Every structure is written in structure tokens, then in C-alpha cells.
């Protein structure tokens, strides 16, 4: 059975989360859905990795988290980007662009 690889590219999960949250604060599931939507289903986020990554980014000081009460009396953790997170996103994005363009140049040269 041939199935397209939907794993998030290794090492880019942090950047994707930060980018998603730079638009607006949201909770874990929201982040996963948004990544899938924007990537048009190319990436499917593994919930376990996502939640662990959120924990890590929060600890690193790039995300702020707030508990909100939802309508069906559950608690939801809503994440937002901090200033440090914004800076980190810029760094990672720049880095990514630089590397992607390098890969693209290499592939062009091949062709």
C-alpha cells in the first residue's frame, strides 16, 4: 500500500507551532488542526509529540499558557507566543529559508 508521508519534517515541529501561534492564541487541538489545514493535509500532527513539544516550548519561555474554562465545564490550556518566542520564530524561519533555498539551488543545478 502506497501512502504519502504525512510526518512533520524532523526538527520543524517547534517552528510550525510557533508560526501557528503567531497568528492567534489557541489550544493544542487547534494548533494541530491549523497545521493540517494550512499545509493542506501534507502534515499530520502526532498528538503525543505535539503536546510534549508544547510543554518543552512553554518551559523554554517561548510560549505562555493560560487555563480557560470551556462551555462544557472542561479546562482548556490556551497557548500564546511570548516576545522570546517571536524572536525564536524569526531565527528559525530565517534558518529554514536559508536551508530550503540552498536545497532548491542544489536540485536546480541537478536539473
Amino acid at each position, binding site marked *: 500500500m502506497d501512502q504519502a508521508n504525512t510526518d512533520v519534517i524532523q526538527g520543524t515541529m517547534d517552528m510550525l507551532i510557533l508560526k501557528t501561534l503567531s497568528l492567534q492564541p489557541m*489550544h*493544542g*487541538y*487547534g494548533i*494541530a*488542526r491549523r497545521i493540517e489545514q494550512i499545509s493542506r493535509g501534507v502534515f499530520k500532527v502526532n*498528538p*503525543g509529540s505535539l*503536546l*510534549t513539544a508544547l*510543554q*518543552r516550548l*512553554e*518551559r*523554554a*519561555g517561548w510560549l505562555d499558557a493560560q*487555563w480557560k474554562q*470551556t462551555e*462544557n465545564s*472542561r*479546562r*482548556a*490550556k490556551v497557548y500564546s507566543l511570548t516576545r*522570546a518566542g517571536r524572536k525564536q520564530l524569526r531565527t528559525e524561519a530565517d534558518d529554514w529559508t536559508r536551508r530550503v533555498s540552498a536545497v532548491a539551488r542544489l536540485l536546480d543545478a541537478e536539473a
Partner: protein
Amino acid sequence: MNLWRQATYGLRSLFNREAANLDAQDEVSHYLAQSAAAHEAQGLSPEEAQRAARLELGGPTNAAEQIRGYGWENVVKHIAGDVRYAVRHFARTPLTTVTIVLTLTLGIGAVASMFSVIDGVFNRPAPGVPDDRSLVRIRGIRVEQAGPRLRTMAWPEVTEYAALTARFAAVAAWTSRSVITASRDGAVEEANVQFVSPNFFATFGITLVTGPGFVRKGFKDLAEPELTAVVSQSFAARRFGGALNAVGKEVKLNGIAVRVVGVAPRAFNGPIQSYDARELWLPLSSYPLVMSSIGQSFASRDSSMFMVLARLQPGVAHETATAAANVVASSVDADFRSADRLPMRSDVVPLRGTMDLGGIDGESLALSAMAGVIALLILAVCTTTVSSLLLGAAVARRQEIGVRLALGASRARIIRQLLTENTILAISGAAFGLLIFGWVVRLLATQLIHVDVAPNWTTAGFTVSFAMVTALICGLSPALHATRAGVADVLKDGTRGATSRSRLQRTFVVAQIALTQPLLIALAMAISVTLHGFGPRPGSSIGDSVVLADFESDIRESQPAQTHDPIPGVMRRIASLPGVVRVLPQRTGYGGTLHLTPVGPVPGGVFKVLTVPVPVDYFRTLDVPVARGREFTAADLSAGALGRVILASDDATRLFGPVSPIGQRLHSLSPAGQRVAELEVVGVVSSGQVSDNEELPEVFVPYTAERIDVVLIRTTEPAAPLLSALRAVIQAEAPKLPIVKMETLDQADRARRKVVLQASGLAAAAGMVALFMASIGLYAVVAIAVGQRRREIGVRVAVGATPRQVVGMFFNSGLRLSLIGLLIGLPLSAAALRILDVEFEIQWMTVPAIALAVGAVVVAVASLATWLPARRAAGVDPLIALRAE
């Protein structure tokens, strides 16, 4: 900010585990709910939507665990788990645990204390001296045939050093004497005094605790006699009840009144470290009066009596200063020519670390080397014991480790566990060891005030970290060993491979015994050297009714013409007292050595003997019966060319065989073999009651008592209650005659024994500790071997071995180890003896006896340590042992 966040988050989840768990669970369940809702919106039934959501997430508990698994607090949690496990393990094996901790405690405590003393002597300023970096000692050296020797210097030479101002910022001189002074309760006592150049304290940079100090303070302010003194704190406390009371008071030294003008800092003991307490410092200008040497000036070229300390100018190296000092020394050499003139030199050495032990290359170095070697040996014995115990414990836990491996623990996980245990052991050993260290140091600080042994945390830290690192390394190797074997192997048969592991442990034990032995031999030698010459005194059965009165003689000696000797009068007065049987002059110590050869019927060889001068009536006074012949009489004192001798019975037999020795003649010979004099034997006393020298036979000769220092008083009743009355009588008869000491023979013996016991007690304790540790190691080896080989023992017993054979098997192997250790230790012991020989003059005759005794003790203790666990082998029931596997 970032670190802070990490820390607070970690702490919060560490201390509020419930809340952290709840947070993780809530986040996961919210995610699930959202995900399920989305699936439902796509048309799945609620149940199906739930299932799909769970499938995506991979189980809510798992996901929550994953979230919680992030962060440093988890490491803490794991370590805490390891520690809990370790503590449970320790509780299960209390004996091993306590032994390991005790061993570490003893080792760390002993070594830290020892290093602290060495450090106090060599790496820190002398007590009471604030800054000694630029302080040096200018040592006078005379080059003799046997090698260079230290010499004292005359005042003119000292002034020449003081003139070298380009090299020395200040030069001070001192000379040590002892004087007589009255204690607070009127008793006469001796005190150690240093006569110093007036700039002495300024050169040291010492600020007196109280008082203005000497009136004149210049190096050369010596024109008029200044009768002042700076006293030590202990002297001020003893005599005046405190430093503050002392200043302005008067003390009489050799009968001369001296005013106290200052108190030295606590523990200050003069320029050179010494075990004698220096108590007073007087300006040099008072020397002629106090020491009654008016005729002879200290400043003359002939009175060479000074030692010199100096402060170097900034930037001057010791070598440069030595070169300059040598120029002075050689000029002194040139204009101070005497008959036995030998080349003179000088050198400049740091003042720190010089001790009052003489010797040009510092016997102090040998002493410190010995102490250091002993300390390292103790440390080595201690660490080998610990590692052999740890190894034993790890081997015994192979089963447990196998089970954990089988349950999926990684090898790293188990090694971490074992290392955690070792760290706990090392930390607690170090903690208790430091406790002991602090205690010993406090004890030393009160008992040994002349060396600065403040708690030295650098030393202690070094020792502790050394012990910890060693414990960890020792623990690592058994941990690696124990986890190396495959799971199946371990579980299948606990005994296979045990031999290779216990071989390492056997090596440890052999090393330990090898290390223990030189330690014990060195200690036994030290004890025997200290004890030497402390045999029973002649007539000790009446020791309580014989009083020795010791009179100070220096003063009388220095002015023989001016004073008449009061002692004969004192002796007559004492003899007239009721209860006093006899009063005799007594010479302390031996007269000298003689070479004797018998004349007449028995052609004997040449005998080397010690002469012991004894007064008339000596043996009668001490209740020693004269077996044959007679005692000396007054007539023997003026016997002219024919000397009279009394022999001990053994020596009489050796010299003359069965012939009666009375009236026989002896020739005394010069070392070259020429006859010097003829002697006649007049009496024989029983050997058992007189001889207290094992090396040479003793020959008694008449004591003519030209100058009497010591008087022997025989009383009818026990004399101890009479001492104060006797003292009063003597002081009434001769008020100016200082009594140095007055005690019964028994009291003197007790005092000496006490000192010797104190000194040797410490040494013996160290040796016992070492032996104890080695036996623990041996015990562990045998006990573990018995435990490991239960199955084998079971088989042996089942096929007919008797319990005695089984026990013998283990006993022999343990004993073999200790014998190998003894053998390997021999060269080490020889090295230890060589070091000891530098410090004490070893009597090599006693070495084999001591070596044998130490060997016997080691073998006996080793046998016991082997036999106790070996006995357990006999208790193995073959049925149980074979079934258990």
C-alpha cells in the same frame, strides 16, 4: 529568565505532583474531546468518534505520561527512587553497610587529621606569627668531616648580617636558656626563656596582646641592662590569672626581679617550632644579670650562642641572601681562628617549617615524610577495604541484578543504581569522618598548642574528595563486573564466574595485609624505641620510700668561686630529720663505657661494659643485697691507682666462670687495646635486681660526688606525704637553692610510664585500626566465598566430606592469602624501617623479634577473621543447598 522558568516549573511539578498530573490529564482529555467533536462533525457516531480520537492520540494515560516526562525534575525523581532503593538495600544488609561507613569514617578522620598537622607545621606560619612570607632564618653552618653541622653565632657576626640592609630589612637574634622561677604557690619551677635582640617582635611583625613591649626596641639598644620580659599567654594565665593582669607585675628569674611589659599572642612559641613551651622573652641586655655571667659578655667574640632570623627586603631571593651571608661567614672564618678551626658557612632558609630537631637537612622533613607515608598507608588500607567490601556485596547481588536485567532494566540503569549506593556510603563516611576530624583537631589544638592545627578545610576537603573518588572508582569496577554477564547466565547459576570476580577481591585483601604489616612494624618499633630503658629500677620494691631531689646546677656552676656549694649542708640537715634513714648523692645516668679483660686464671676476651657510678652505701639504701663481698666504703673513693668495682652476678660468671670473683683483677683497656688501669672486684650483686640495660653489662664504680645535682633520700615510711616537709626544710637551709624536682621513685616511674603510654597509645591505636580493617576485608572474602560456593559445599558434604574438611578448605585459602600478604609486605616494612631509622636510632637487635611478633599477630588475627566465616561452611545442609538452586 529562562533558567528561572525551568526551575520554578520543575519545583512546582516536583512538590505539587497532583496538580501537575491533573494539568497533563486535563490537557489530554480536552484534546480528545475536541478531536472527537471534529470526527463527529464529519459524520461518525459519538462512540466511533471517541474511538478514532483515542486511536490518533495513542492512549490518554500514555500521552499524559509523555507530557510529564519532560523536565529536569524527572531526573530528581529517578535519583530519589534510586536513593530509596539504596536505603532499603542498606537496611537489609546492616552489617556490611555499617562496616563500610565505619571504615571510611576511620580512614578519612585519621588521614585528614594527620595531613592537617603536617600542613600546620610546614604550610602555615608558626603559631602567633601573622605574616611569615619574607621571614628567613640565617643558619650558621660548620663544615665538619662528618658533614655540615649547624652552629650558633657570636654577636659580632650577627651585627654584620644586620649591616646587610640591601638584603635584610631587619635582623634579630635570640638564644634559648632555662631559668628558675617560683610558681604561684611558691614551688620552684623551670621556665624556658629566650634572650632576644630588642627588635625581635618588630622583626616578626607581632603585635603584643597587651603591654607596651620592651622599653628600648632598636637592634643595638643594649648599652644598659633592661630587666623586662614579654611572657607567653599560658605563663600569664598560670602566674597572674590572665594576660590583662600580667603587665606591670614582677617575676623572679634566677632570683632577679624582672618586670612584665607585654604578653605574646596565643600559642606564640618563638621562631622555631618546638615541643618545649617557650614562656618568656627578655632583652639581651638582661642576659648578664639574669644568667649571672657578668664576667663574660654575650657580645664577646668567644661566646657563640645566637641564632638569627631576618626579614628579607622585598624581591630578594633566598639564594641572593645566602650568597651575601656566606661572605660574612667566611670573613668571620678568616679572623676567628681556633685550634679545631673548620670552614664556616651560612645559608638563608625560610623560617616556616624549621623545627627544633637539629640536623642540617631538616630531620623535620623525614618526620613529615614518615607521617605522610603512614597517612597514605592508612588511606590505602581504608580504600582497599572498602572496595573489597563493595566487590563482595556486588558479587552477592548477582541474582538480584540478574532479575532486574531480566525485567528490562538497562545496564546503565543498574550501574547508576550501584553508583548511587556507593555515593551514599561515601558521603556518610565522609560526614562522620569529618566529625572525627573536627574532634581530633580540637583535641590537638588543646594538647599540642605549639603547632597550629586549626581545622584545615582544604586538607579535609582534599581527603574527602579523594576518599569519595576512590570509593566511586572502587564501586564502579564491581558494578561493571556484576552487570556484564548475560541475564540467562546469572539466573541459571550464581556460582559460575564467581572465581574471576573474587580474584580481584583476593588481590585487594593481599594488598591490604601487605600494607598493614609495615604500618604495624613501624608502630611497634616506635613503641619499643620509646619504651626502651624503662625497665624496673633497682630496688623498685621500696620505690615509695626513696625520694629523688633534683637541684638546679647551672647557677652554681656559672659562679663557682662566688658561692659555696649549699648541698652538703642540705644533705646533713635532711639526714638529721626523723624518719630519714640515709641521704646519698646520686649521679643520674651512666658514667661511660669501658673495655675490660680479666687478669689471671680465666683467660677471657675483651668485654665492653657501661660504668655506673654509685655512692657509698648505695645498695644498702636501696635494699639490694650484696651477694658476695661488700659494698663500696669511703676508703674505696681514694683507692688510688687500683680502682674497685662491683659486678652483677651474671657478668661475674661470664668473666670469671665458676671461680669466686671477689678479689679478682680486671684490666681496663684503651680502644687501641693498651692497658689503662687495673681494677679489683670487691662485691657481687644479684643481676635481677640491678640491671636495667639490655645492651651492655653494667659495672658499678665508686661515685666520688665532686658536684652534686641529685640527692637520694631513703625514709622508713612511704615518703610521698613527707615531700612538702622536706621541701620546707631544704628552703629553710638554703633559700637560694632552686629545687627542680622532688619526687619518690614510684612517682617518677608513674609519670614516665604515663608519658610513654600516651605516646604509644596513639601509635598502637593507628596500628589496631589498620589491622582491624584488613581483617574485615579478609572476613568479607571468606564469607562471600562460602556464600557463593554453598552448592559446591553441599555436593562435597553429600559425597562424604566432613564438616572439618570443608571448614579447613576455606580456612586454608584465607590463611594462604594472609601469608602471601605478609610476604609481599616484607620489602615495604624494610622501607618503613629505613625511614624510622632516620628519626630514631633503631636497635637492630630487636627488629627480628618485633617482625616475628607482628607477623604472629597478623596471622592470628587473619586466622580468626578467616575461621569465623569459614565455620559457616560446616553448617551447610546439603539437602537445602542443592534444592535451593
